[in-house]
């Protein structure tokens, strides 16, 4: 087996993915070990499961971000945090008019619509995604601040809190919602032709065009999906806080990008896995929660996650340049 592998000049893309997932799993193992030793509260089942509540919103946004980045062409969605805030605020206004659960159902198409605006700007109008979504990031956040006059709106019925706060057999509903969107998305990416189109477009726009795939159409759909996911994030956030805050999604766009990159999605698209994003979300959440449990200052928590991202970026560079190739072959 070993002899066979050392003959491989380049590890297949699949091999890099798998090694990435292996690293992430081991990394989570290391995190769990360190924090269990350091804090007696980390591995307590009730706490440990409770922690997964904090994966929900970041993971859902990270999923949309991963898909957009995967499809290449400089794809990125900086507006996910603002879309989250705006959908959350719209949900509040809807809930004052109709039953809250109906309002929840109506919020998702609103999110899809916000995403569609991004999609049109980035694909059919042709503004670079970084600029287009930067613009909508300010626009959406401005609208939510404007229509609320900057005030947090509360008054959701208490039973609405079940999505954000609820537990089923000790497992947070937020995490179940996360799995509920990740599993179909994973199947879509791996098994459907649309999933293959995403990867194809991300790898080479030109080739995709030649075989009759429209990169614009694929990317447009992904921006729409990202808007819908952001709305789902907004619903969870409202349910969790029982308050619609016009600034609820502030900073979430960067966290969403961070989990996508940490999960091994290549920033120029074409390679990456949803499992990677999911594991990265869990890893980052555990680190933050663990650092919180040992009372590390929030500034340092961010610093440590920043360092981690630098490390991953360097790792990506090294893998891309082939520096670690031999190691991967030997270890794999």
């Amino acid at each position, binding site marked *: 087996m070993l002899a066979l592998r050392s003959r491989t000049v380049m590890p297949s893309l699949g091999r890099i993915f798998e090694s990435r997932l292996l690293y992430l799993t*081991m990394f989570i193992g290391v995190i769990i070990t360190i924090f269990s030793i350091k804090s007696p509260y980390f591995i307590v089942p009730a706490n440990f499961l*409770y922690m997964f509540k904090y994966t929900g919103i970041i993971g859902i946004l990270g999923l949309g971000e991963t898909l957009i980045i995967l499809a290449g062409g400089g794809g990125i969605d900086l507006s996910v945090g603002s879309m989250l805030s705006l959908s959350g605020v719209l949900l509040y206004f809807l809930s004052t008019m109709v039953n809250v659960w109906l309002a929840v159902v109506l919020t998702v198409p609103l999110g899809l619509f916000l995403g569609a605006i991004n999609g049109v700007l980035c694909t059919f109008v042709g503004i670079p995604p970084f600029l287009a979504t930067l613009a909508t990031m300010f626009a959406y956040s401005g609208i939510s601040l404007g229509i609320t006059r900057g005030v*947090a709106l509360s008054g959701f019925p208490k039973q609405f809190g079940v999505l954000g706060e609820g537990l089923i057999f000790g497992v947070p509903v937020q995490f179940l919602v996360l799995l509920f969107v990740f599993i179909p998305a994973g199947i879509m990416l791996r098994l459907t032709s649309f999933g293959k189109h995403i990867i194809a477009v991300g790898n080479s726009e030109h080739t995709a065009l030649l075989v009759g795939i429209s990169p614009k159409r694929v990317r447009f759909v992904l921006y729409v999906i990202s808007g819908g996911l952001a709305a789902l994030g907004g619903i969870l956030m409202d349910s969790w*806080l*029982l308050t619609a805050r016009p600034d609820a999604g502030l900073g979430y766009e960067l966290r969403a990008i961070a989990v996508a990159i940490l999960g091994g999605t290549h920033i120029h698209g074409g390679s990456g896995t949803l499992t990677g994003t999911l594991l990265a979300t869990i890893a980052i959440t555990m680190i933050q929660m663990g650092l*919180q449990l040992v009372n590390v200052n*929030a500034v340092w928590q961010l610093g440590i996650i920043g360092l981690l991202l630098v490390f991953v970026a360097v790792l990506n560079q090294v893998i891309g340049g082939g520096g670690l190739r031999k190691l991967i072959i030997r270890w794999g």
Partner: protein
Amino acid sequence: MKRVLWSIVLAVLVGWAIWGVAAERTISVAFIPQLIGIPYFNAMEAGGKAAAERFGVNFIYQGPIDVSAPEQLRIFDALIAQGVDAIAIAVLDETSICPAMERAAAAGLIPFTSDSDAPNCPARRLFVCQALNEDLARAIIDGIAIRLSPGDPYKAVGKIAFVSGYPTAVNLNTWMDLMEEYVNAKFPGLKIVARRYAGGTAAEAYRQAMDLFTAYPDLAAIVGVPSTSIPGVGQAVEDAGLTGKIIYTGYGSPLTARDYIHSGAMTFSVLWDPWALGYLTVWVGWLLAQGVALDQIPVEIELRVPGLEDRPEVAVRWIPEKKIVLLGPPLIITKENVDKYDF
């Protein structure tokens, strides 16, 4: 595979070495500020630390790096998981923190509020209050009146204008309403002529103040309501050549007000002592955690807090109707004492 295993072992050892081995059991009191890294909450932290040292408390100070209710919740949840004895929080958002407070109470922890309250949350045991809004409003108006009419302040005559922050800030609006009520009730010669809103920027406060000076050339006093308005209005007073001719006051921290108080542009400032507030918060948490049911005392009483005797303007009281531990009357900051504080 061996190397991977070794690197895991190494990582674990390094992690252990960095954080050291954990603690023995003492009473722990946590305080979650609205955000960390600003002088105001730094002062509260310093006060809390001093109390922790004096009473042998393990004091945990953890807060978000920007004003974020979800982050406060995350920190609150982590503190519940750690099983600290008492958690004090400067509430950002009452509805979102209330269920967490209930969880804390159910887990046998003592949740209470400090600096900013959640009055409608039944799980909150009490509120450590810096100063009553009524007292804060009176301090400004009394200070203006006595300077306008030193003999009999109630005969003071003059126009007063406010430069507030955001029009939606509840605390600022409350203060302005209370000041206006107090003026209308007690000072027939005083008149509130304008309420301007500067948002959060000094530049806008400057513009609004200049505008007021033009609109009301005979303005007797101008009030910079939030700390964010203080530098802008102060600069405007200086630039308009009104230093010493107009009474300029507001709720400005000594650090923001210092330059203008020294130059004479600002007459006096009203706030409270966050160091003492932080100290009081930890003391209250320490008492509650030992089972002293401070919140069950049915009558209003004075509380003697060891270590706060020498702080000016501190007169701690328990007010049962509102379930408040009150720090004392507002702190009046003038040229004489402005350099004593660093918040």
